[in-house]
């Protein structure tokens, strides 16, 4: 049983005009087995929340805390956060030229598991995970995200989640860029990992479509750097219908 506690989190980015406050006190607790959907207008700070938890150097924490099972995440290095059990499926996965997917996955698995996976079982494990996400095995020999289509990048993110088996996963718009079939396949992948390892999920999305496959226990409305409303799955339907007008002060 794991718990990610985000308390009054405040985050700024440095701009040419000085520091700009993006997150203005985010409170959210995610437990193993729970799925929390986060929905909110463009630019409201959803990715900022995701990146700040993962430790992207661009963001400055100006207040609040993030605890994983009581341990201060904000004090950890980026790789330590991953080892502690956090995973971020990025909205825009990064291309890493010259580093093959297979080398990358193995290096990551070695780091997370604390020892190199046995070659025999590892190859099978990767093949199986790729097959279940409908990924051509040829991707293993390609460079990380290089030349991948938008949807292929997203599948590759979930492939990593399957192999690294985090405690808490943050999925930042994993559904955008996926065709209807891919959406189902990727969602099934997420559910598979979730069910077999009882992980907690923060699912950032703009659409209710993915929520038909990955059922949220909670829906949070995010606006102007904080959570402004919370509810169950029905809240997502309402948002899809009515938009964010009532939460955004012009």
């Amino acid at each position, binding site marked *: 049983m794991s718990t990610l506690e985000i308390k009054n989190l405040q985050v700024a980015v440095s701009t040419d005009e000085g520091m700009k406050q993006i997150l203005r006190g985010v409170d959210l607790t995610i437990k193993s087995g729970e799925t929390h959907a986060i929905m909110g207008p463009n630019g409201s700070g959803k990715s900022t929340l995701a990146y700040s938890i*993962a*430790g*992207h*150097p*661009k963001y400055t924490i100006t207040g609040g805390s993030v605890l994983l099972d009581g341990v201060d995440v904000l004090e950890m*290095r*980026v*790789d330590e*956060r*991953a*080892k502690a059990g956090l995973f*971020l499926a*990025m909205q825009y*996965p*990064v*291309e*890493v*030229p*010259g*580093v093959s997917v297979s*080398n*990358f996955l193995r*290096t*990551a698995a070695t*780091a*997370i598991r604390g020892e190199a996976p046995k070659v025999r079982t590892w190859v099978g494990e990767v093949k199986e995970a790729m097959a279940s996400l409908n990924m051509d095995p040829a991707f293993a020999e390609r*460079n*990380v995200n290089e030349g991948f289509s938008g949807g292929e990048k997203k599948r590759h993110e979930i492939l*990593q989640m399957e192999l*690294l088996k985090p405690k808490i996963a943050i999925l930042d718009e994993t559904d955008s860029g996926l065709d209807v079939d891919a959406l189902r396949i990727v969602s099934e992948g997420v559910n598979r990992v979730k069910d077999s390892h009882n992980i907690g999920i923060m699912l950032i999305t703009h659409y209710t479509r993915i929520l038909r496959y990955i059922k949220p226990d909670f829906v949070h409305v995010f606006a102007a750097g904080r959570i402004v409303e919370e509810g169950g799955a029905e809240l997502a339907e309402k948002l899809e219908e009515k938009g964010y007008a009532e939460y955004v002060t012009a």
Partner: protein
Amino acid sequence: MVLNSNLLESHTPTSREELWRFTPLAKLRGLHDLEVSLSSRVSLGASVEQPGLSVEIVDASKAPSTSSTNDLVSMRVRELSSKVLIVDIAQNAEIATPIYLTRTVESLDPEVSRTVIHLGANSRATVVVENTGSITLAEEIVITLDSGANLNFVSLQEWESDAVHLGHHHAIIGRDATFTSTVITLGGSLVRLLPTVEYAGPGASAELSGIYFATSGQHLEHRIHVDHNLPHAKSRVNYKGALSGDKARTVWFGDVFIRANAEGTDTYEVNRNLLLSDGARADSVPNLEIETGEIVGAGHASTTGRFDDEQLFYLESRGIPANIARQLVIRGFFLEIVSKLGLPQIEERIMTRIEAELEKASS
């Protein structure tokens, strides 16, 4: 057309001259200095005999240089070399095993060496020049590809840290011939190489790649010159360098010249430099001169920068520690070129050396 001057008169270059202004002349041990005498020695040798391959040493008078490209030091090399190593591949010969030309070293006294490599029509070979040890060397290698020939040429500079090497590799590429050159410069105190190309027939193609890694106090300079002197020839230039440590210094020039008659030219050149620490300096100057618009394409790119933070973050966010993430990125940076050598053992050796340099640099 900086390299190519018929008016070039033999003299001792100074750092006021454009071609020499980046080179620390004082470190050359007189290789450039007309007052200093240089000994002549054929320092390259081939070990294995193969059918279709002949290797011999002849009097320089029997093998005048056919290069149209000039350089003050190359002129001295031609003038002072008494013997020349000739590597000849018979027409239609397909030499399956790589031909290794290995450098022997004797002392740090300045010396000159000349090599001629000739591929007969429709022949095919891989030639690997292996430079190791300590030396003060000025050399010229002239490579001629007759029509339809295909040469994979590799020059490895894995010198000891006190070596000084001025080298000029000039290729003359015949009709429909393909010249692939990979220059790998990791060692040496001062290395200045001039990979230059001219064409002898349409359909000729040159692919010039290279990597270099300079650490503290090293000066590694590469000046590429491609002369599109006739129509329908192709060139691709791709050099990548990394620098780490105080006073690590690299210089890269890519001069591509498309003459008025060179319609149908297809050329692209790129140089990328990765600065791994403060105090290192990389100069990168791509230079494209175009005298005709009737071409397929011409372009260049040059970047010099630090690690891509987004790449490192991505790797680290998957649990990979920062130092290993950096290693992966640098390995990947160079692998793009090294993996195309088609020589697994050399590839492994080069990557191991790069990792050792990296470790040396970060400790």
